[in-house]
């Protein structure tokens, strides 16, 4: 008998269940790409059979961090850049939970970059959505790790001298087993990719282009966009590391010139998730740890039985 009966519940799920019945209403600016992420999650979650109470959405700080205020699941709105370590531990403590982490480009690729690299490296079975608007929105328009070179802002008045970070390539190299890019202006693809990412067993990283009409007016609205799987101009094997790497590199390059390429970039269904790796070396409990505290039959080991080595 589980102590967590929201998990694995079989029933019809209405997407409206993911909308909070009482305030708050989203305070994102009109035309903000963040609405696109919220909408695609509300569509994808029922589609993959997840109920609000078996999902834990962990966010960082920034406009993106408000996601779990407007998505009615269990939520943890953490601190700047730290959604991933919180999320992956929740998944280890209760592997039956569906854990989704989210944050912005400053949050995930800047201040939280170290956690992103290591979470990808370890291939934790969580979904990571990065709201990439190539700018700091909540703090009013400073240059971010993905802002293009030459980007002018209050903190880079002469234009940024920095080359933007390559989120897809980085994630691939770090070890993510699912890497995709989608855009708020492409809702159907976004929903499909989010659903795939949730179902993927391993670290699924979705770089989600979210236009910022307030602080990044010069930037494109990410239209027109091209789906690399649909277009005849691109042909690569999404399961092949080298081909994926090349496609990512090109995608990151052409974005600077205004060509918006999106789609699935890398999928490795064979790589075991971190939890499986940890089980294989005998360091994961068979029973979810969170369940054990409610299990009245559980025999708790005690230090008294370890004392022989000290006598």
């Amino acid at each position, binding site marked *: 008998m589980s*102590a*967590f*009966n*929201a*998990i694995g519940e079989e029933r019809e799920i209405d997407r409206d269940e993911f909308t*909070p*019945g*009482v*305030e*708050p209403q989203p305070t994102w600016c009109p035309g903000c790409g963040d609405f696109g992420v919220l909408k695609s999650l509300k569509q994808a979650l029922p589609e993959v059979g997840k109920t*609000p*109470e*078996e999902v*834990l959405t962990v966010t960082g*700080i920034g406009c993106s961090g408000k996601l779990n*205020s407007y998505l*009615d*699941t*269990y*939520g*943890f*709105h*953490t*601190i700047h850049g*730290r959604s991933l*370590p*919180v*999320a*992956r*531990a*929740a998944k*280890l*403590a*209760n592997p*039956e*939970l569906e854990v989704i982490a989210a944050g912005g480009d400053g949050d995930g690729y800047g201040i939280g970059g*170290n*956690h992103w*690299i*290591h979470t990808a490296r370890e291939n934790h079975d969580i979904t990571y959505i990065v709201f990439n608007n190539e700018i700091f929105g909540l703090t009013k328009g400073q240059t971010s790790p993905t802002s293009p070179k030459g980007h002018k802002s209050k903190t880079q008045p002469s234009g940024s001298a920095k080359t933007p970070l390559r989120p897809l390539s980085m994630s691939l190299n770090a070890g993510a087993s699912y890497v995709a890019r989608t855009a708020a202006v492409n809702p159907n693809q976004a929903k499909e990719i989010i659903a795939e990412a949730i179902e993927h067993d391993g670290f699924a990283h979705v770089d989600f282009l979210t236009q910022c009409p307030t602080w990044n007016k010069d930037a494109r609205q990410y239209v027109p966009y091209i789906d690399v799987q649909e277009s005849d101009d691109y042909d690569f094997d999404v399961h092949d590391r080298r081909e994926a790497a090349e496609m990512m590199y090109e995608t990151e390059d052409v974005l600077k010139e205004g060509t918006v390429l999106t789609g699935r970039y890398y999928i490795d269904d064979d790589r075991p998730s971190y939890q499986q790796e*940890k089980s294989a070396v*005998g*360091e*994961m*409990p*068979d*029973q979810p*740890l*969170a369940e*054990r*505290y409610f299990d009245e039959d*559980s025999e708790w*080991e*005690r*230090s*008294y039985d*370890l*004392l022989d080595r*000290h*006598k």
Partner: protein
Amino acid sequence: MSDDELIWRVAGGSGDGIDSTSQNFAKALMRSGLDVFTHRHYPSRIRGGHTYVEIRAAAHEVQSRGDGYNFLLSLGDSFARNPQEEAYYGNEEIKPLSENLDELREGGIIVYDEGLVSEEDVEEINLEERAEENDWHVFPMDLRGLAKEHGREVMRNTAGVGVTAALLDMDLEHIEDLMSDAMGGDILEANLEILHEAYDMTNEEYEFEHDLRAPTGSHDTEQALLSGSNAIAYGAIDAGCRFIAGYPMTPWTDVFTILSQNFPDMGGISEQVEDEIAAAALALGASHAGAKAMSGSSGGGFALMSEPLGLAEMTETPLVLVESMRAGPSTGLPTKPEQGDLEFVLYTSQGDSSRVVFAPGTIEEAYEQTRLAFEIAWDYQIPVIVIYDQKLSGENKNVDVEFFDREPAPDLGSTLTEEELKEAAHDASGKFKRFNYEDAENNVAPRSLPGQKGGRYLATGNEHSPVGHIEEDPDNRVAQMTRRIEKLDTIRDELDEEHPSNQTYYGDDDADYGIITWGSSHGAVAEAVERLNEDGHSVKGVTVSDMMPFPEAEMTEFLESVDEAMVVEMNATAQFRGLIQKELGLFGEKMTSLLKYNGNPFEPAEVVEGYEVNLAEEDREPTAQVRIEPAAGD
């Protein structure tokens, strides 16, 4: 300085096996019926550098390393540098002998390996002359030769133990038993041979003129030899902690290692992660999802935990962190103890802090207070920090085995079951009022866990409404903030009612001079107070463990009962005295401080001298590397 005790110092190079040798010898002394206490000195160089371990053994209780020592087994440094390095470091081989002489008591014994250090080197350090002056008894033995003859060179430790046993007239039985537990086959055979050969040779070669012998004693109950780090780890295990995340840093690494090694067999999870921000954030995430989780570090790593710590306070997520202090600031003295992180641990992270901080003073308290830390953290949904230091972390002491014979306590405290959630308050949309300040008993609003039916809510580092939504309404702010802060008052009440033993009192109850200390300085201070009273002074002492919430009533009573008090702590700015003044708003003119920050813990004699200088208002400085900080107004 008592004559009925042995303080045996084994010195050698890093890598000479000092640790295992001393551990086994300490156990042998414990099994023979003595109380033992060990002190480990660490070199501050990575490669080489010599080191020592001291074992103090007596038929009576021993609470500190004692003053000086009376038996030196100098193995010499077999890992001595290459010839080029000698220019920088001098002759390394002789250092375990030459650099340990200053603290050797009069009449003490010296055993050194003449198979390793040359006669000329020994002459150069004037050993003979110094021995005469101090009435030392010197026994050169070819430990290396003996080891090589019957086994391998690394076994010269065993030869040293054999010589020690002969000189102290100890029975070899316990030493043999411990060797048999640890090894087997040819290696055991060779070691046993070396042990006996060394024992016999010593008896044959020398006429003993020294008085020192191993004390004899007996225990009524079975004993176990444990370090402070063991005790903290075991307290966590018995509290049902099964998740730890960390990043290596001396000296915290010991607790992390012990739990990482034990958890796989206990259904626990250990995670070594990319940095300490992640470590604390993982513990927080695991706790949020329902595990009893902990993390920890030493000062530098704990600095990175400030933000997750604040998040735990704001989201009322139970969490236990341990902080193993070493001398700072910055990298400081990485392998030396200090009590310099108190203010840092009490207040770090933005905003008003709402956390509990315990500072155990002994091995037993390390266990008790870690257990208590989990109980309070999960009952009150508050982060609890156990602050200790390199000294308590590494020292070993014998503890009654029965002390650990108790029920585990994996209870999740104020966490609801799905059944209970049905009865709990929800908002109109069905969201659980996780932070409901209206019915909060003891200022605690019970929590749900992700995956439970009917429990969904938002946890956020922003100020929030009862269901967790970001909320800036002033009334809500005041209600939530007040409730979180006032938990500390409730916890204080509980501690006063149920755990008055967190403070330890000793000495003469009627004295009008008080000595106050905290944490791991306890042992040296308690012994000093005992000695002062034996010598005709009248002194009472208290060791405080509750740093936050502060034991106001107890400390007021103590300070009111004395005319003067001396606060003893291992830091340069009298942090604990400052805390007492801050918390009580009084007594500044009564308290002087005895401070030590040279990287070594207090010895009882230094506290005694500090008292003498202080009380007599003698116009002299203490001889030890300590500092006296006058009372306010002086």
